[in-house]
């Protein structure tokens, strides 16, 4: 198992802190443009995903990739989590994983 560059759990806020690094985020699909997904992050802000295939709107998708902008991720892996997902719980996780318990994750 390759643990050389773990993906950081992020939401739109925390994404800014990890530009150029490998991140993972769950977004709710708002719309699909050509090869680009526009979605809502777990803290309510917008995130753009480049290089990803289309997913049905209002589905929750996990994106693992490189953060290449304050609001965008260049996708490597995308997974459809379906239609029911607790955004608040994930957001809590992002905050804890990057705050108090950062050492447990990175």
């Amino acid at each position, binding site marked *: 198992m390759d643990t050389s560059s773990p993906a950081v759990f992020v939401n739109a806020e925390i994404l800014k802190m990890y530009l150029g690094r490998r991140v993972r985020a769950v977004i709710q699909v708002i719309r699909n443009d050509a090869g680009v997904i526009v979605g809502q992050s777990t803290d309510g802000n917008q995130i753009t995903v480049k290089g990803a295939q289309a997913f049905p709107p209002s589905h929750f998708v996990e994106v693992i990739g490189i953060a290449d902008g304050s609001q965008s991720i260049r996708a490597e892996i995308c997974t459809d989590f379906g239609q*029911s997902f*607790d955004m*608040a*719980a994930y957001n*809590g*996780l992002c905050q*804890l994983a990057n705050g*108090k318990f950062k050492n447990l994750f990175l």
Partner: protein
Amino acid sequence: MRKSVTPGAISTLLSNSSPDSLSDIPEIIVQVVDLKPIGSSSTRFTFMASDGKMKLKAMLPTHFSSEINSGNLQNLGLIRILDYTCNSIPNQPEKALIVTKCEIVCPSLGMEIKSDVKKEETGITLKPKQEALGVTSKPKQEMVTKSAVQIVREQHGNAAPAARLAMTRRVHPLASLNPYQGNWTIKVRLTNKGNLRSYRNARGEGHVFNVELTDEDGTQIQATMFNEAATKFYPMFELGKVYYISKGSLRVANKQFKTVQNDYEMTLNENSVVEEAEGEAFVPETKYNFVRIDGLGAYVNGRELVDLIGIVQNVSSTLSIRRKSNNDTIPKRDITIADDSNKTVNVSLWNDLATDVGQQLLDMVDTSPVVAIKCLKVGDFQGVSLSTLSRSTVVINPELPETKKLRCWYDSEGKGTSMASIGSNLISPNSKPGSRSMHSDRVFLSQITDDPTLGQDKPAFFSINVYVSFIKPDQTMWYRACKTCNKKVTEAVGSGYWCESCQKNDDQCSLRYILVVKVSDPSGEAWLSVFNDPAEKIMGCSADELDRIKTEEGDEKYQLKLKEATWVPHLFRVSVAYTEYMNDRRQRITVRAEAPVDCAAESRYLLEEIHKLSVS
């Protein structure tokens, strides 16, 4: 000349108890009253010498007895005293008049002479005379004083006892009582009487009961009596009667056990005085302390009772609820109340309130009546639910300012607005109804297993999130149950099964689960007793079905079924009780309800717990 007594004759006689010579005696005429022989003698007579104001015990000379026997002198007659002595009688405060010589003035006046002059004056005027004569004998003075007391007593002696009591008793309003002032009397009505309970604690045994007292202003206070006082007063106190109470003690009320709105509570002991007020009945004005529907959340599952006023929107039909403890059926009716906080709440009326008042409300529900209810218990069924108790009172369209206000509000806006039930606000929107209780009192298994004192008097309830780790395949999984009442049946003589409670035989019975499972969570392990309903959820099939698999499909399939149930997470609501089992005390954990684990809710619960860790 009409003969009459000499005014002040007695005082004259008393003042000069032993006149030296006959010439010292002024004209003294007294009336003879209460003339009677001494003992059975016919020669010695005693009487009261009266001058119209005062009386003096006297004795007639023996030689005079013939006059009485002949009728020349009778009772109520007049005599002129010519010679006399006043003697002190040993052991008596009064003096006695010994008449040594007298003459008849009038055989009988036919009536006793009395004068209206105030006797106190006589008393006053007498003293200077006595002092002047230098005869300051105590008995004399005492006699005078006694007269004054006697007068007061006589004056008031005719008054009825209650009136006399009322005059001497100052009634204090309940609101004025405090622990620092002991001399009070209150006039109260017994508005609630508790039961005489026996208890045992570290200090020994005892019994206690308490009552609720209300005075004319509507103020209420709780009074408690222990042991001797309890035995003494329990039969005296009757619901609805009015009593005068004094010599009780007051202390600050224990807010945990408060049932009435008063900062103080009263204790009565054997020295306390409780008197029934004859014929004095008052109906104390009912004091309400209304809580608005949107404020009920704070009272949920608390001990404090609330009062409610609102518009009746809906009345259900009467339901019969069966009580689990003794299988009694009790009538119940649910009504929906709305108030100007734009919220509704459900109130359950029980027993008489359901049948009588409930029916009244049903008949008039179209008029949207205002109803005021006192003493409601606040529960958490469906968020918030109100329930009546035996002491609750329901008044339809009461004469209160709130009634008018509610009427106005309802007619103008309330009728039209759709109002949400207050209960729905208090259930978190994401959890299913019922599963909310799955999250309350969450503990780890170790918290239950480490504490053997849990559930000693009453079972303690918790919720746990555990994995089923082991189900013994060769335990007795089920019992044979009656198809109607689910109670255990025994195999009857011949064929079929006999149900003891239904008192009937049945060819068929159903199998109901009764088993123990081992569960694990991060803190430890425990054995849980599980009954039919939660067991079906664990096993994934009914007991009948499992039995069928075992017998028809073989042991392997049966084991597989058990395996499938293992390492499945569940949320259980459990009760912990400490029971004696064959001289061995054991902690027994029983599953009351089961729910599947809701990951989203669990995540949120965990986030909260983590947050709590960082705060503390």
